[in-house]
């Protein structure tokens, strides 16, 4: 009977079911999740009423704590409390140690030189830590939306390279969550303000968070968002404002006694409160209980505070100036300036930035939420909940991709700022007689020397038939998807002999490391694991069936009955497999559906291309 149901034209199994999607801002200091409800993007609040989750993970004696609970242990159990893990994503241990000299963690390197942090739960890497931050956010969205998510959009800094992007995506996938798309943070902020509806324009996004400052210059032309330049300072943020203010309070109080961590934390808290108070008032009262039992009372004016932080604000303006120059544009070309990050609430920051860019700033959306809100809007569109939307985000590759050639030099295969997705092939040859293998080293970066670029992956192409030097033709193909993620394949094609290998440089971990990580992430018993895999395959099966039903409804006319029959048969088999509830059966049936519908899918794509063009010529007439 199922077969009849499928073949009846005009019927679909789940008509206009709203898909559940969320946008996640996985931040250095705080993370948020947002979704679109009744056409409006909103951030989601946890049970305590907070919508921002501190990006801190505490590996406690009993279980893992995330967010505010974890923050309480940041000092008392620093060694097991990972703060701002985003700084470590996709970075090598050497890199991290050079940038952050005084990390309180016990660290080691993976086989490929990436960082592992030794906690009381054993070794963890930045991907695992990030997935712990994502876990409560996804649980919150699932609970709030009332069902499993169909997918999420996660934001990443525009300058993130392949390893950092892949790591972010893997963090979500460790939780079994589908990532619709990685979205650049500045692009997300621009979407939240609806700037994608403009036709043309240059947008500056000024993002001053707790611990980092990023500035990006974007160009929007006919629906294409292009990142022209990014800049900033990875060690400058609102926390530095607090520290300066705390120092000032300490001096003003005249206290010279013991300098306990508790007192330091208390002063930091007072400083942070005062900073926030000064965003709305001209004077902030200060009260500090000193360990000697006495109480100090004072006040700070906005003018004094402004003078304290002026050098830091100036640094952000200098970085903005540099980004504008790197973008190759004039200041007057900039149409909009979007303010992101909690620290942009500080009036003095807004004044200085407005006076540099010589225009009014976009500040109407909460700067802590704007990135998550933009991600939610994009997630809603990608989920298919807004079929009429014609927004198209064409991203560009942030850094060039290339290969190592003789003499430690890099040869660029895909230059930066190429619109993605993109596929490019380059041919190489052997340089020794009888050479049967070739090492391929994939790099990302702008510099000429291999050692100055980031090494993404190495692999070897073996089985090249022995030939004279220069006679073999090795074709290396780079493919970058819409998220900016790369896969590389190599093939020897001379004399008809072909062999190929496919690598996914991923996060630079070896297959073994990946396997262990996935095993570790499964805190389930064996049965639970099977149940989880079965549930995942069932979801995938319904995705495949739903897709085919609507494809046949829309474009069934592309095929004759003879061509349709095997597809319908495969669909029926899949339905039966789902009903039988057997994992292996479902997997095979999905593969069979996929196999018989290949040509149909290609035909449909060609048809939509023709339609896109004919729509055009009708307009012309």
């Amino acid at each position, binding site marked *: 009977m199922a077969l009849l149901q499928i073949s009846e034209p005009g019927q679909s199994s789940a008509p206009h079911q709203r898909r559940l999607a969320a946008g996640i801002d996985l931040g250095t200091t705080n993370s948020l999740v947002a979704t679109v409800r009744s056409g409006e993007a909103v951030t989601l609040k946890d049970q305590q009423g907070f919508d921002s989750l501190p990006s801190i993970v505490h590996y406690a004696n009993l279980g893992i704590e995330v967010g505010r609970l974890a923050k309480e242990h940041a000092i008392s159990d620093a060694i097991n409390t990972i703060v701002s893990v985003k700084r470590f994503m996709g970075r090598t241990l050497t890199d991290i140690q050079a940038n952050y000299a005084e990390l309180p963690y016990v660290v080691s390197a993976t086989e490929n030189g990436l960082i592992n942090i030794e906690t009381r739960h054993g070794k963890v890497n930045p991907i695992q830590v990030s997935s712990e931050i994502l876990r409560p956010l996804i649980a919150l969205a699932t609970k709030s939306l009332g069902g499993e998510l169909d997918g999420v959009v996660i934001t990443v800094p525009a300058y993130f390279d392949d390893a950092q992007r892949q790591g972010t995506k893997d963090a979500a996938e460790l939780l079994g969550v589908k990532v619709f798309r990685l979205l650049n943070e500045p692009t997300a902020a621009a979407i939240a303000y609806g700037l994608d509806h403009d036709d043309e324009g240059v947008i500056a996004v000024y993002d001053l968070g707790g611990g980092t400052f990023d500035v990006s210059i974007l160009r929007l032309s006919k629906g294409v968002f292009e990142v022209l330049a990014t800049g900033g300072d990875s060690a400058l943020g609102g926390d530095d404002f607090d520290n300066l203010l705390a120092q000032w309070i300490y001096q003003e109080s005249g206290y010279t006694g013991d300098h306990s961590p508790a007192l330091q934390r208390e002063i930091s808290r007072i400083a942070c409160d005062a900073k926030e108070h000064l965003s709305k008032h001209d004077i902030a009262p200060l009260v500090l209980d000193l360990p000697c039992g006495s109480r100090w009372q004072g006040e700070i004016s906005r003018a004094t505070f402004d003078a304290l932080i002026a050098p830091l604000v100036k640094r952000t303006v200098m970085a903005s100036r540099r980004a504008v120059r790197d973008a190759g544009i004039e200041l007057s070309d900039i149409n909009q300036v979007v303010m992101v990050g909690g620290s942009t609430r500080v009036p003095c920051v807004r004044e200085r930035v407005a006076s540099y860019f010589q225009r009014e700033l976009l500040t109407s959306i909460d700067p802590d939420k704007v990135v998550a809100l933009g991600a939610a809007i994009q997630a809603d569109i990608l989920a298919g909940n807004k079929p009429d939307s014609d927004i198209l985000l064409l991203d560009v590759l942030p850094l060039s991709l290339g290969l190592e050639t003789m003499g430690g030099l890099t040869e660029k295969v895909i230059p930066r700022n190429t619109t993605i997705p993109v*596929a490019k092939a380059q041919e190489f040859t052997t340089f020794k007689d009888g050479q049967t293998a070739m090492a391929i080293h994939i790099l990302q970066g702008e510099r000429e020397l291999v050692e100055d670029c980031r090494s993404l992956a190495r692999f070897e192409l073996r089985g090249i038939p022995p030939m004279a030097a220069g006679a073999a033709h090795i074709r290396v193909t780079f493919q970058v998807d819409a998220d900016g993620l790369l896969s590389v394949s190599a093939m020897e094609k001379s004399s008809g002999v072909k062999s190929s290998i496919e690598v996914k440089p991923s996060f630079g971990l070896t297959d073994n490391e990946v396997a262990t990580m996935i095993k570790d992430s499964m805190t389930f018993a064996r049965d639970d694991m099977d149940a989880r895999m079965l549930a995942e395959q069932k979801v995938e099966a319904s995705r495949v069936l739903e897709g085919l039903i609507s494809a046949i409804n829309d474009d069934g006319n592309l095929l004759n009955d003879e061509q349709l029959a095997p597809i319908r048969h495969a669909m029926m088999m899949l339905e039966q497999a789902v009903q039988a509830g057997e994992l292996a059966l479902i997997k095979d049936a999905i593969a069979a559906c996929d196999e018989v519908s290949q040509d149909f899918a290609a035909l449909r794509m060609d048809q939509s291309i023709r339609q896109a063009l004919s729509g*055009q010529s009708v307009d012309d007439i």
Partner: protein
Amino acid sequence: MDRLKPMNYFQLFALTPSFEIDLVELKTKYLDLQRAVHPDKFANASERERLISVQKAAQINDAFSVLNANDSRAQYLLELAGFELAHETQTLKDPMFLMQQMELREALEDITSASDPEQALIDFQAEISLYINEINNQFVTLFSRNDTDSLTTAADLVRKLKFMLKLAQEALRVEEKIFAY
């Protein structure tokens, strides 16, 4: 990618193969095509459809970048006519042209020390674009004749065009220096 038979780039954009194409029309069609095939439109589709979508979108991006620039479009037209220029090792055998290139390069180097470098650079850039226009015009004429001799000469023109475009690039670098961006 074997399954997706490589469509001629002009066909892909429903354009008649020609050197002179309407770049605005090309861009409009490019965006229409991307709207139809971009992976974002297939976020919920099956793996197979997503794979095809990525490949098509990449192909359309590549086609657009080839057709959008004069030199790559000219080279592509010649390729369609059976003249492979992409991986050639053959060099340009035109002593007059090469001599002119050397002179132009020297002129460019001297600009920074000219009495009025800004004006000198503007003049230089104008001269280069004149040469480029001239090459483009000659290419159109030769290419339309469509016989082996004309096409062979047209291939030389594409090689010359590449020299000129490289020079224009270097002029931009000098511009950056002079105007101290």
